[in-house]
């Protein structure tokens, strides 16, 4: 058994840098764009469950194989699978090289990306994240500083955190908001 600490380290160092490629791969092979994030998380779960017994030597080929099998299984289950999809997937299997880890970001690149990612999120969300990250304020302190409610700060932090993480890992920096929110309020934020 691999202990949690080693598993986590492997996941962060070997698997997460593949996220950009993995997302592109899922998108290319899955028609329902709303399901892409769910599929990615399912794949991560399977990747971790498999690696729990022994860490695979080649993370790229391993993640790719799990992603592919999972997509084929989901496609079979959904019964709307077209022959093309499975054929495409088989073809894609011939080219593992499309799956490549993002090169290690230098500190400078990381700063640039964090900066750009922060610029992508809505204004209020951005300010809340900035106060937290740059000035080290807690939720309570941020609420006092901006004179807004604690629960608003909590929601904005969570939202900003998800968006920024998505961007840092090579995504678009756009995330789905919790379902309960009304459309009008959403518009008011951005």
């Amino acid at each position, binding site marked *: 058994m691999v202990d949690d600490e080693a598993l986590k380290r492997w996941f*962060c160092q070997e698997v997460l840098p593949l996220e950009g490629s993995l997302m592109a791969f899922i998108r290319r092979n899955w028609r329902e764009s709303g399901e892409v994030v769910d599929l990615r998380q399912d794949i991560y779960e399977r990747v971790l469950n498999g690696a729990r017994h022994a860490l695979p030597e080649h993370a790229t080929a391993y993640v790719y194989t799990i992603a592919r099998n999972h997509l084929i299984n989901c496609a079979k289950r959904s019964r709307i699978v077209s022959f093309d999809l499975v054929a495409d997937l088989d073809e894609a299997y011939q080219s593992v090289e499309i799956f490549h880890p993002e090169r290690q970001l230098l*500190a400078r690149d*990381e700063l640039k990306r*964090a900066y750009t990612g*922060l610029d992508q999120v809505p204004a209020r969300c951005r300010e809340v994240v900035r106060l937290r990250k*740059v000035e080290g304020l807690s939720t309570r302190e941020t609420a006092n500083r*901006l004179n807004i409610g604690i629960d608003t700060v909590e929601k904005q932090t969570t939202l900003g955190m998800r968006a920024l993480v998505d961007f840092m890992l090579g995504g678009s920096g756009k995330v789905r908001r919790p379902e309960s929110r009304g459309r009008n309020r959403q518009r008011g934020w951005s």
Partner: protein
Amino acid sequence: MSASEIEITAAEWLRRSEEPEWSVADQAALDAWLGESMAHKAAYWRLEHGWRMADRIRALGPSTGPAPRTAHRWPAWRYGALAASLCAVILSASLLRLERPRAAPAAVARFDTRVGGHSVVPLPDGSRIELNTGTRLRTNISERGREVWLDRGEAYFEVAHREGLTFVVHAGPRTVTVLGTKFSVRRDGDIVHVAVVEGRVRIDDSARDAPAASAIVTRGDVALAQGDSTLVTTRSIERVEGDLAWREGRLAFDRTTLAAAAAEFNRYNRVQIAVTDPAVASIRIGGTFQAANVEAFVRLLQEAYGLKVQRNGDRITISG
């Protein structure tokens, strides 16, 4: 639960884990949640990793936010916020000039470890800080001054000497000032414990300017400050090193009461030891243990001291 719902829950946990109110019980609840499924771990680890990568924006410093893309569309509240942050910067600058900030002003960087955690933080000035279990601290290191706020827990400092530039550790009711030395500060609420391995440090009451309240602590000294009093005891350097055994993941006891030893173990582990019997609690023990190995410690109590051990989930009760 869908993947996005799990992600939102994971983000909530991550946010809460950074709050000053985060407790050992909260950490236990998070660990339990993570233990529930690999999907929870995947979501949490991913967010935590990406969120740490984004820490780079600290380099922007408190006064320079990202430039707005469309400044004229800013809602009015942003101007208020901007004015407020400018005020805060000016305020903290004037506090620094007085050299006695009462509350921690905006800090540039924040570091923390969870229960059982241990991490080493190199600072831009060449100093380094080692964080022990359940520790949170903030640093503000610049050309003008070097300040650290120990919000909770324990840390070992190796301070690089910089001519004329002091290094100040604010630990609640006490302020520790140094020029270049190796020492550790531990904070249990209002009790501050300072052990010096090399060089010398000065401990002041954070609330008062009176030099009479200062205590100088040198190599081999251990200071315990609580309320108005600061007690300095000279110990052998071995004893000071015993206090710092946590740096190697060990706990060293020397004629320590069982109650105190159990409390030490509890700082590092989710499994908590309770000593119910006062006569048993005052038994003195000695030895060196792996901080994470509660089992070995409990086994010793059972076998060598003939004490009764009862287990109930994450709680181990010791009695005579």
